């Protein structure tokens, strides 16, 4: 995610420094704040890395002080490490953890249905929230991507999943070529037919332009648009005819408290450029 080609998420070089200065925050910071708001107090959260990890830290320090973080390597944390993490295996993430267990320990909680929300990055997402991180294509060439990691597990089994990614036509496509992590498949009823848990599936897609949510039919719609972004820009950047909510709102920008946490943990904007 972040600085590399962005196939695992966000590469937000698209707005000028002057714009950022005027606005007071980067789009990554906006996305982190929006992601943090998807975590409710006391929830069990499968945290992932990069922006979602920051979102978890922000949530804990603001409205969700009792949220608990799970990591795929088996680490469970109630108290955030307080240091910027590059991977979940970084020593600060292990010291003082609630538990350093096995991967199966956290995956068991996931499969029991105890995980309220899981965050995922994606190279490609389609109108029903299916994700592709295995084989993508760019300029008509097949690109081998890193793979599922824990994404397929989380997409299948978490009660809600929240995706973070850059919003462009290459990433938001009509139909992913490969379903690494299942969303709503082909629409309502699909997940149940596959045998996936009833209380599971995508809840929100937070992009560099807005936030998408999902209707009862399993199809995505634009729920909020970021400040300064036009609906036209969102529609043009989406690879299918994106529906727009009747009550479209503007995404709430990050508050001072939220920004404060982010800038304390990531002062050099390693993840939040």
């Amino acid at each position, binding site marked *: *995610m*972040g*600085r*590399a*080609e*962005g*196939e*695992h998420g966000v590469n937000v070089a698209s707005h000028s420094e002057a714009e950022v200065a005027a606005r007071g925050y980067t789009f990554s910071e906006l996305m982190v704040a929006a992601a943090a708001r998807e975590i409710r107090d006391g929830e069990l959260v499968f945290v992932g*890395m990069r922006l979602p990890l920051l979102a978890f830290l922000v949530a804990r320090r603001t409205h969700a002080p009792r949220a608990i973080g799970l*990591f*795929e*390597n*088996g*680490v469970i944390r109630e108290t955030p490490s307080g240091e910027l993490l*590059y*991977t*979940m*295996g*970084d*020593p600060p993430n*292990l*010291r003082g953890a609630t538990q*350093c*267990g*096995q*991967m*199966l320990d956290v*995956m068991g909680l*996931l*499969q029991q249905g105890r995980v309220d929300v899981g965050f995922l990055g994606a190279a490609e997402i389609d109108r029903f929230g299916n994700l592709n991180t*295995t084989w993508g294509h760019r300029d008509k*060439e*097949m*690109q*081998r*991507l*890193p*793979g*599922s*990691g*824990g*994404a*397929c*597990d989380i*997409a*299948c*089994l978490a009660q809600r999943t929240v995706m973070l990614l850059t919003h462009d036509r290459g990433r938001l496509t009509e139909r992913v070529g*490969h*379903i*690494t*992590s*299942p969303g709503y*498949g082909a629409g309502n009823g*699909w*997940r149940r037919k*596959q*045998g*996936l*848990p009833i209380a599971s599936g995508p809840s929100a897609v937070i992009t560099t332009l807005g936030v998408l949510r999902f209707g009862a039919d399993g199809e995505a719609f634009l729920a909020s648009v970021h400040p300064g972004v036009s609906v036209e820009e969102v529609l043009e950047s989406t690879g299918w005819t994106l529906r727009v909510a009747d009550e479209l709102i503007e995404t709430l920008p990050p508050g001072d408290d939220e920004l404060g946490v982010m800038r304390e943990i990531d002062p050099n904007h390693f993840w939040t450029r």
Partner: protein
Amino acid sequence: MAAESKLMTMREAISKHVSAGSMVLMGAQLEQMIPFAAGHELIRQGRRDLTLAGPISDILFDQLIGAGCVSRVMAAWVGNVSAGVGYCFRRAAERGIPRRIETVDYSNFTMALALHAAALGVPFMPTYATLGSDLLKKNGNLREFSSPVSEEKLVAVRALRPDVTILHVQRADAQGNAHIWGSLGVAVDGARAARKVIVVAEEIVEPEVIASDPNRTVVPGFLVAAVVHEPGGAHPSPVQGYYGRDHKFFEQYHEQSRRLEDFEEWLTHWILHAPDRRTYMNQLGVARTESLAVKEHALTAPADFGY
């Protein structure tokens, strides 16, 4: 009568216990304690046709693939965790450079279950994970089935039995009894699933030290074929209590592996021309290694096994 020591050099351990065509599990603890020194020795010994297995092994798999050692990868994620893509992996998978590789795609959970099945001695473990995904469609080791005890569909994850699991540990005795602390990942099952285990330890200690804390013993010595004393053997990945993660090294590898010519230069400098890990550490330099050393020790509360 004292048991025979299993201590040997990395060169001997790899030479004796990892043959061409083997399936090798490395990176059982995900981003922590990855046995890079062992992987580099495999490269130096020109081992071919390996199947690499593991959930996420950061850039180690990318390096082995780039060096031409690998014909198959069974993993959940292959790349450079903090930087993004694994360029050698991509070149091999897309264009067969330096050679074609077969990719068998798992998720983290299904990889863990595959090893768990083998560790339990059963042919498969059931799960709901991967239902509806193309992973299930394309990976022959994942098979949908109807539960015999409930009205529902599940996925059977076939047991995975590596020929060798290479584990990096903080300390071990000469028999291979080993303590690990930190992120366990799939290390416990990974050790039991394999036909044999090579333990690579930061420190070799007396048996009494290991025996003083049997809850921390992750690998019992009778599963271990070889023990290698290799300080710094997991660099650039971190070892809790010994050294931190060398983030810059991962970033530099990302830049230097993007183009094939640059990768070949990197490979020569860090692996082919460095005959062992000690040389590699000298190459890194004192300043670098000191910057990674433990800044503040954090000992655990003692546990009293007395009675």
